[in-house]
């Protein structure tokens, strides 16, 4: 009887110890996180075949997306809980049979949950203008073979709806149920889609820039009503659709006579950014050189109000940058991707004040 009681006490002690151990030590096998709903300062960085999802409000990583070797950009679709991208895949990684697909990533698990096969023509490198989410319904992927076209995928039915031939015109910048493209003759083209994702109309703007004298960057960012394009000499053009026409507003220059005399130039791969809620428009600037230096890293960040066309401030960058983006909320931060080390500076857009630096990441930056 005494022995049995002793055994019970001993067993109890062992169980108690186990319970304590359970509290003190993790499981021998780790658990798997899921991502919370995206916040207003979430953004992505694509570098190589990894897409990082980060929160600029905390500097914390929320997870990564495994991309193909040919996936230049991502396209978040928060309402659907998805991030879209496209990629090219060879049966032997670098060679073999090629398959191109639009990939559907679930935002919570950061895992691919579906794909739609598209023609093996997608541009393998580039920036956010290579893929657009059109009217929350269609994905457009820019193709170059070097003939130019756009593949359309319906994200609701998850089907390929067709390829639209767009000779001489590049990029996909969505507007309404259609998209703008920049063309080699110095004009914009707008292609509209019907309910099925088939082309049902095409508009052409007046020629508003000279490819030879002062071409616009092939990069663009959206405004409240359309898109903004910037030339290598710093002229700003806003484009929108009005009464079935492409309207190009009168351009204005980000450079004063003094700026020009001092040799300041806009440059970078994502050299400007816009926040529609505040009207803040930012540019990456460097000093010296010619138009040929249009991909140079910027050494200063200039902040304008797009509505007043006036500059608010300029700030020197310790870490020169080719890539910037502004979050979409009414207290935006500007994300400045450094070129000299792999890091992103998060700055308050209204003041330019440095809030934090996120280390060991870089590449193409896109906001949610």
């Amino acid at each position, binding site marked *: 009887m005494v022995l049995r009681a002793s055994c019970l006490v001993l067993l109890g002690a062992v169980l108690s110890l186990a319970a304590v151990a359970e509290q003190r030590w993790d499981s021998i096998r780790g658990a798997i996180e899921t991502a919370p709903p995206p916040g207003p300062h979430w953004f992505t960085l694509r570098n190589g075949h990894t897409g990082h999802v980060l929160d600029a409000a905390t500097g914390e990583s929320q997870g990564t997306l495994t991309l193909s070797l040919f996936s230049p950009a991502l396209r978040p679709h928060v309402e659907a809980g998805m991030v879209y991208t496209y990629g090219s895949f060879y049966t032997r990684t670098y*060679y*073999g049979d090629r398959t191109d697909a639009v990939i559907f990533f679930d935002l919570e698990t950061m895992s691919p949950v579906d794909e739609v096969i598209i023609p093996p023509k997608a541009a393998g490198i580039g920036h956010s203008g290579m893929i657009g989410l059109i009217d929350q319904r269609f994905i457009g992927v820019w193709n170059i073979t070097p003939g*130019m076209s756009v593949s359309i995928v319906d994200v609701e039915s998850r089907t390929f709806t067709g390829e639209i031939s767009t000779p001489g015109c590049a990029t996909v910048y969505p507007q309404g149920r259609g998209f703008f493209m920049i063309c*080699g003759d110095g004009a914009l083209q707008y292609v509209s889609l019907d309910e099925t994702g088939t082309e049902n109309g095409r508009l052409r703007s007046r020629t508003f820039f000279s490819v*030879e004298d002062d071409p616009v960057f092939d990069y663009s960012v959206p405004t409240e009503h359309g898109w903004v394009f910037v030339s290598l000499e710093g002229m700003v053009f806003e484009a929108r659709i009005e009464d079935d026409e492409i309207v190009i507003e009168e351009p204005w220059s980000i450079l004063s006579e003094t700026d020009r005399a001092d040799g300041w130039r806009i440059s970078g791969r994502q050299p400007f950014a816009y926040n529609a809620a505040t009207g803040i428009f930012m540019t990456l600037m460097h000093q010296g050189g010619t138009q040929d*230096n249009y*991909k140079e890293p910027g050494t200063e960040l200039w902040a304008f109000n797009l509505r007043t066309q006036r500059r608010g401030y300029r700030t020197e960058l310790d870490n020169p940058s080719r890539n910037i983006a502004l979050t979409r909320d009414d207290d935006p931060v500007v994300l400045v991707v450094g070129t000299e080390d792999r890091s992103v500076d998060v700055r308050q857009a209204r003041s330019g004040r440095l809030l934090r630096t996120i280390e060991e990441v870089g590449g193409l930056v896109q906001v949610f």
Partner: protein
Amino acid sequence: MSGDDMLGRLFAGVDKLAAGTSRKLARHTSRRSFLGRAGAFMAGLGAFPMLPVYREAQAASVVDEMGDPNSCEYWRYCAFSGSICGCCGGSATTCPPGSEVASVAWVGTCHNPADGRDYLISYNDCCGKSSCGRCRCSRSEGEKPVYFPSKANTILWCFGAKSHAYHCTLGLVIGRADSTTLG
């Protein structure tokens, strides 16, 4: 006249035709029209993949050069973007073993310091292998955004190859930029 001489004259004429045509197009045609014609020209290069290689061989015998072909400062690389093939088992004019040369390319106009003349340079990518990654070089003299592809180096130029996996880039002299008459 030997067969080689005949071929030499034939391709010398093609070089001048290409250079003269480019300038004429640039002066007298709209950009959109130029694109279409440039596309047709590049498609033509795809149909005769040996043509640029042979023309390079012809040009190399007459172009007086100076500089290190494995350096980004080399005169031919004025609109170059990528890895220099000479650092990857090839040379400025030949792809490394096991890679495949793209049959279409972007074109730059570079100044040769050795003879003081401008030449048209074809930047053909070598493809089908993982990226070489050595001797990276990025210059953009006269380079244009992607909507003007014949002058754009931010396009994956592996067109015509079986795989568009980028390995490295060549710099082929395809003619003089200041030539205006057919030979």
